[in-house]
């Protein structure tokens, strides 16, 4: 589904990602871990299509298409979802209305009719019920005045509405207390299926207690220095990153 080939990328002319290759198939969950400054967030920004970040060489192929040639809107419509580390606040734009806009953009792309607010409300209520979210998320403005945990929940709600093929969750666990982490993880698990894939980008292993990865990759200085299964994450947690990064 996703094929990253020798990706080099950076921001403002500084190379941060220095040759990453990664292959993700349907139904798989990959965790990308690494210390601060290892290139995790640059990789996430590149995958999401953030205009400030630039890929200098390499390829990212998604469903046979060159992802690097698509802008953020096209990537989203193609089925890539980015769960942001710091979701931006948009005062004045109602959350439910925003979700409907995003949902309809996808339907229009698929040649389907837009759904009206009433029908959408039904869909939204169903998804919110599944994720155990309170009604207030409908009434409030997009991330406006949300706590860190509320913003992350709202990201997962968007993921549920947009039903992406590939989801990237960037530091979704940061800023969450243990209860919120559990709720968010349960939500993500409910959305997993044989047809979609998930990439978790995280600094800590604790998220992986709730969302079990099939593969764990350790990033250091812009490269994947070690790959393994869930056991690798546990080892990392107990021994710290020095263990892998210096072993390289």
């Amino acid at each position, binding site marked *: 589904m996703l094929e990253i080939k020798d990706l080099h990328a950076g921001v403002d002319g500084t190379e941060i990602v220095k040759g990453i290759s990664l292959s993700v198939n349907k139904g798989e969950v990959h965790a990308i871990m690494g210390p601060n400054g290892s290139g995790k967030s640059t990789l996430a920004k590149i995958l*999401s*299509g*953030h*205009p400030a970040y630039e890929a200098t060489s390499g390829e990212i192929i998604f469903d046979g298409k060159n992802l690097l*040639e*698509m*802008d*953020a*809107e096209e*990537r*989203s*419509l193609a089925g890539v979802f*980015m769960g*942001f580390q710091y*979701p*931006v606040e*948009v*005062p*004045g*734009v*109602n959350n439910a*209305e*925003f979700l409907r*806009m*995003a949902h309809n*953009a*996808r339907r229009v*792309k698929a040649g389907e009719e837009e759904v009206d607010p009433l029908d959408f409300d039904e869909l939204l209520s169903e998804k919110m019920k599944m994720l155990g979210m309170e009604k207030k998320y409908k009434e409030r*403005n997009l991330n406006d005045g949300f706590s860190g945990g509320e913003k992350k929940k709202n990201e997962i709600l*968007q993921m549920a509405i*947009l039903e992406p093929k590939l989801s990237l969750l960037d530091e979704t666990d940061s800023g969450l207390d243990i209860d919120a982490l559990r709720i968010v993880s349960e939500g993500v698990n409910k959305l997993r299926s044989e047809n979609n894939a998930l990439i978790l980008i995280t600094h800590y292993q604790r998220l992986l207690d709730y969302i079990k990865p099939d593969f764990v990759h350790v990033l250091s200085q812009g490269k994947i220095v070690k790959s393994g299964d869930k056991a690798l994450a546990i080892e990392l947690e107990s021994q710290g990153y020095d263990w892998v990064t210096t072993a390289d």
Partner: protein
Amino acid sequence: MSDEQNSVSDLLEDNQYKYGFTTDVESETFAKGLNEDVVRAISKKKNEPEFMLNFRLKAFAKWKTMKEPAWPNVHYPSIDFQNISYYSAPKKKKVLESLDEVDPEVMRTFEKLGIPLDEQKKLANVAVDAVFDSVSVATTHKKKLMEQGIIFCPISEALQDYPELVEEYLGTVVPVGDNYYAALNSAVFTDGSFVYIPPDTISPMEISTYFRINTEETGQFERTLIICAENSYVSYLEGCTAPQFDTNQLHAAVVELVTMDNAEIKYSTVQNWYAGDKETGKGGIYNFVTKRGKCAGDNSKISWTQVETGSAITWKYPSCILQGDNSSGEFYSVALTNGHMQADTGTKMIHIGKNTRSSIISKGISADHSSNSYRGQVRIGKNATNARNYSQCDSMLVGDKSSAHTFPYIETANSSVQVEHEAATSKISEDQLFYFESRGVSRENAIEAVISGFCKDVFKQLPMEFAVEAQKLLTLKLEDSVG
């Protein structure tokens, strides 16, 4: 990818001004210039009663002693008032009996503007007075309104049919010498709308005026007077457009509102005068307007809502004099400036009576090279005990060449008042747009969502028909430039 990306300000580019056509009608226009004879001639032309001529002459004498105000935060070359024609009317031989007799060209103009005057195709529940250059050409629904005793007619007609009503109220809210442009208007106004709502009457429909400036180098000086008697209510709508000329045209209107005990007037404006060339700033309307309402009666209310999207320069402060006890004033405003537009707009809330309330919600959006200023005065007099005011004026900036200014004046002279003023600035940020895009929502939809979210406190004050139009108008200013 980034090459294709338009900057936010590109996205807000104005599209072609849709109303920039002129209509070829035979009109009768006075020679340019202004002196006492011109004032007399206007009065004579309109066959006005004696008091009206005296009113005009007094105003003209006052105007000659006054200077153009220099305090607004706008810049323009000084206006040559002798190079303006003070009277232009579609030529007509006799008093029109029905709409069929209106020059068909004029009728077509209003049709092009989307204002059906033909009563067959009338808007469901809106009575319309159409003012073409300086003269009212058509007023709809008059009969239906008259059944309830509501007078809705051109002010020139009111001067013939109800001179005592006009004499009693004209100039009581905006005195002839109130300010430079009001004095000029008082001397030379040619027409406008007159509304009288008798006691205990709720107007069965929205009342509306559309203004159209058609002739180049004509000033439009219309005068509106609305009186709402005890326990009555009216909602009044005003729309404005003008053709595209390279020269600037002057629009100096005066609107006076009076409410008696327990009466309420809701006055809404969607202003879309031609704003001048987007690149050069050439041409466009100078919109120097005095709008003021007096809550003369106890428990009365005046509410101004405006959506300002046009004019090269806007100088306009719809105000409320809260004289009656427990009276209240409201001001809701969205002012969008782009290109080289300059707007200095806001309100005055003058609290005189006890327990008076006012609230001000102002939203300014500035894009391109434009300058957008909010100027608002809240003055609470010594006897206005327990007066309350709440003001909120927010600015949104689009692009780094535009500017936004906030000039509140808060003056209080007694201890039982409560005044709160808040202001904040925001922008449409690239981060916000990127967030929308990453959810598959296009930039134009994202901008629209952010802008309408920013303005929604004001839009919800507009009558339904106007809210739709205002939303359309803002979108119109923003779309087309996208993609």
